Structure formats: C-alpha cells, structure tokens
C-alpha cells in the first residue's frame, strides 16, 4: 500500500461520510415515522464512542503527515502570531490529539466490517490511517520529498482535517459525543493551511511513494517455460542484495550476458524493439565481462546469486524455441532486467569506492620480502581509481545503469482529491440560516 492507496481510501471514506446527513437515523435512531428506531440510546452512545476512536486514528495520521513534511521544530514557546500556516496546523492537531479522550482502536475494530454503513466508512478511513502511518518512515519525509510533494502531503492533511471538523459538528447530537478540542481553531488552521499549500502547483507523484512489501524469493519447483526464467531472475535480484565477491560478480555478469543474447534472438520476430534492446544489453555485459577478467576481491558472498545465474541458464536451455513470450512476461523481464542492471551498477560503484574490488597488475614478480630458499610470486593489486586502467566504471555508470524514468501520478490521484474538496465545500447551510445570494 503506497501513500496514494492509503490516502485515496481515506479520502473516499471521508467524502462518503461528508455526503451523509441525518446521523441519528443512520445509527438506527428515531427519525421519520416510516423508519423505525432499531438501536437504543446506549447502543448509539457505544457507536459514537467507536466512531470517536476511528476519528482519533485519522487525527493521529493527520498529525504525523503535517509533522513529516514540515521541519519538526518545537512549538511550545510559539504563539499564533509567530507560527506559519503549517506550524499552526501542527500545533492545533497536537492539541486535538492530546485532548482526545477516545483512545486507540483495537485490531478487531479496525478489521471487522461494521453493520452500519456510516460506521463502516469510518472504519475504512481508520484502517487507511493505520496503514498509512507506515508510509512516513519509509521515505516520506521533509528531507526526501521535493517542495511540491511536501506541499501536496500538507494539503492532503489539511483537507482531511477540514473534513473531520465538519463531521465533528455534524455528529454533536450523538449521545455522549466527545467533540474535538478547539474545533473552530483547528478548522480555521486547516482551512488556511490548505489554501497556503495550494499556492503552488501540486505534485501527485508523491502517491507512488510510501511503504512497500520487501521482495521475497519465489521458492518451489520450476514452473517451466519463461515463468521459470522470471522466477530465477527474481531470486537472483534478491540474492544480489548481498554484496558479491569478484568471482561471484563475474558469474552473474556471464549469466546476464547469455540470457540477454538468447532472449534477444528468440523474440526478434514478436518484439523487434525489445530484441534490439536486449542485444544491446548483451553487448554491454560482454564488455563488462572483458573488463572483469582482471578484477579481484575476496570480500562478499556471491554464492547464491551465481547459483541463480547457473539455474537461469539451464532453464533457458529447456525453454522450447517455438514457445512465444507473452507480453506480460516480456514486461516482467524488462522490469527485472532494469532492476538487476541498476543493482549490478551499484555493486560495481560501491566495490570501487569502498576498495572491495581491485585490479590485478599485468606482470607478476618475485617477492623481495619472502625469506627462505623458495621465493613466492608477489601479487600486486591496485585500486580502481582512474579510468586509464579500466573502462569498468564508465561502463557501469553510463551504459549499464538504466535511465531514470519520469514518474507519472496514478490515474485517480487528482480526482480523489477533487471529490473530497467538493464534499467539504458543498455542504448544506444550517437550518434557519438562509443561503446567501450574490
């Protein structure tokens, strides 16, 4: 679940809630004479307490969002005059969370579907909040996001807070309802912050970031065909997370070279563009293999990765030449190739920078330090510090590393935000207060 997925679920749930009025009836209370009362006052009070716990989860999420994208300076000695819009929202959220007596939701409450649609929408919002909290430590912070992305997250938090404030006022007739502390100040701060964050363009590519499950090896027997290749290539990628020694790296490079070449030949009729791309990849790996012949380095563990390379090639031989490559399999292979290329390039750069990989010098000579009758050959290794000695680093940086792709925001990102904004703005006027004309 990414930031976009969790945020989208939360906004959808809140937009649904903002469209719902006559709250007592929706909780089984008395209303129209045609709709019987199905819950007692005590039951509605219990539902209200449950909603307050769900609301607390969303409130905590908003506080984490506002803190993550704003420098976390202490606000205890500041005043409303010295705080900016983002700090004011953070301060008001802090006070609202500290003043909340609702308590935390239990895991059962988060995962069990509720009978009333209204409570179910709150549960979905709280569930997304609980999951969304994990997105922030996973690279969603002021230091790692661009200014535009920070403003987008801030605006999202401000709008969700606005929604909570509107709903808080609407739910005040629920028996035993605990209103938000300083609700009016919180609403004002959220409104000002939403306007402030919307001054400049938004960057919805932030939706692609957040927590993702770590890759796992695919165990089990060979599924056969190209699926078996994809399985082993995935395992190879995961095993490359351990830094390989020089010999292991050479074996991996050999496997990728052969795989790219053979696949390029096989798909030349069905996917000519892909075939050319894989042929170019094979040529790059060939040059890398040549440059690696003098590479030395005993530190690291490349056993699993090089074993995967061997399995890969034996499975490749078993794939019948008549078997076509399905488009989704081609897509998977392209994605895996890109990630492996990026990882191999990273390994080479790290190995050179940390002096884990060395170059052997050309001519061996007798060691002068050796004592005794037999003089051993002195080995000389030099760090890879200049491109005069090898083309290795240039190949890894310029040819192997895939070009950075320009992220595009997910399709529903703007629409999801627009729906919540409309739901906040398009609420009916309170009774007795005639609508303003003009």
């Amino acid at each position, binding site marked *: 679940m990414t930031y976009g997925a969790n945020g989208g679920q939360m906004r959808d749930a809140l937009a649904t809630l903002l469209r719902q009025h006559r709250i007592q009836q929706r909780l089984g209370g008395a209303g129209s004479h045609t709709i019987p009362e199905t819950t007692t006052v005590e039951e509605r009070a219990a539902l209200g307490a449950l909603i307050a716990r769900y609301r607390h989860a969303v409130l905590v999420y908003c506080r984490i969002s506002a803190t993550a994208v704003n420098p976390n300076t202490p606000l205890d000695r500041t005043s409303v005059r010295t705080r900016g819009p983002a700090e004011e929202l953070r301060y008001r959220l802090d006070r609202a969370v500290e003043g909340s007596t609702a308590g935390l939701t239990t895991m059962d409450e988060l995962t069990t579907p509720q009978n009333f649609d209204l409570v179910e929408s709150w549960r979905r919002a709280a569930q997304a909040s609980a999951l969304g909290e994990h997105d922030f430590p996973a690279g969603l912070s002021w230091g790692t996001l661009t200014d535009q992305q920070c403003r987008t997250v801030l605006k999202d938090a401000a709008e969700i807070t606005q929604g909570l404030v509107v709903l808080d006022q609407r739910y005040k007739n629920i028996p035993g309802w605990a209103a938000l502390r300083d609700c009016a100040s919180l609403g004002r701060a959220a409104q000002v912050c939403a306007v402030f964050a919307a001054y400049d363009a938004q960057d919805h590519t932030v939706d692609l970031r957040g927590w993702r499950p770590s890759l796992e090896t695919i165990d089990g027997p060979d599924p056969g065909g190209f699926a078996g290749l994809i399985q082993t290539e995935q395992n190879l990628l995961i095993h490359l997370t351990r830094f390989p020694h020089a010999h292991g790296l050479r074996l991996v490079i050999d496997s990728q070279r052969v795989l790219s070449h053979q696949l390029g030949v096989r798909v030349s009729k069905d996917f000519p563009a892909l075939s050319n791309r894989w042929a170019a990849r094979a040529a790059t790996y060939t040059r890398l293999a040549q440059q690696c012949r003098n590479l030395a380095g005993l530190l690291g563990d490349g056993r699993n990765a090089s074993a995967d390379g061997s399995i890969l090639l034996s499975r490749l031989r078993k794939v019948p030449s008549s078997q076509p490559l399905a488009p989704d399999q081609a897509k998977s292979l392209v994605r895996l190739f890109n990630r492996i290329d990026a990882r191999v390039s990273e390994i080479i750069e790290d190995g050179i920078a940390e002096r884990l990989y060395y170059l052997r010098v050309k001519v*061996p000579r007798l060691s002068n330090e050796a004592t005794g009758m037999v003089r051993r050959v002195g080995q000389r290794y030099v760090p890879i510090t200049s491109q005069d000695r090898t083309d290795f680093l240039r190949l890894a940086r310029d040819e192997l590393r895939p070009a950075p792709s320009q992220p595009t925001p997910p399709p529903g990102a703007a629409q999801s935000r627009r729906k919540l904004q409309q739901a906040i703005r398009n609420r009916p006027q309170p009774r007795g207060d005639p609508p303003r004309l003009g």
Partner: protein
Amino acid sequence: MLLSHAIALAKARSHVAALADTAVTFEASVQYERVLLQLDWIHGDDVPGLDGSGLTDDRNVLFSIAEAAIEELVDFDVDALQIELVLAMLIAARELDEP
C-alpha cells in the same frame, strides 16, 4: 604460487582471453570466458593479471599455446581432474568457434 606457475597461468589466461575476444560466434566467446572463470576458480581467484601484449592473431596458435599452458599447470600440484575438465571445456569452446 611459484613464479613458473604464475607465468604458466598468466600465459593460459591471456591466451584464453584472446580466444574469447576473437571468437567467431557468441557461444564460443561465452565458452572461452567460462574456461577463464574455471581456471580462476581452481586457483581460488588468486591468479596473475592478463598480459595481452605481443600475442599472435592466429587463433590456432593461440589455442595451442593456451592448451599447452593449461596442461603445464599439472606440474604445479593443481588437481589433474580439474585440469582435464578445463581442457574439455576449451575443446568444446573450439568446436563452437566455427562460422
């Protein structure tokens, strides 16, 4: 590793590398490269660097020198079975090296 062992190994490696670079087919180049990897693995990756200077362009000569240098490694207590396997790989590579 004694100097004569290192010289024999460097000669074998350099000539096999030259064969890989001048191979006619992709498969043969890959196979020669694996001969090189196998030689390095037998020696625990403790091998001298390549010396590509002054090598002939004649691939038959390159092959003969590589083969002789690999056979010579038996004299330096390298496992004879491993050397035979490397020689078999070298011959397999040569068979693939046809246009």
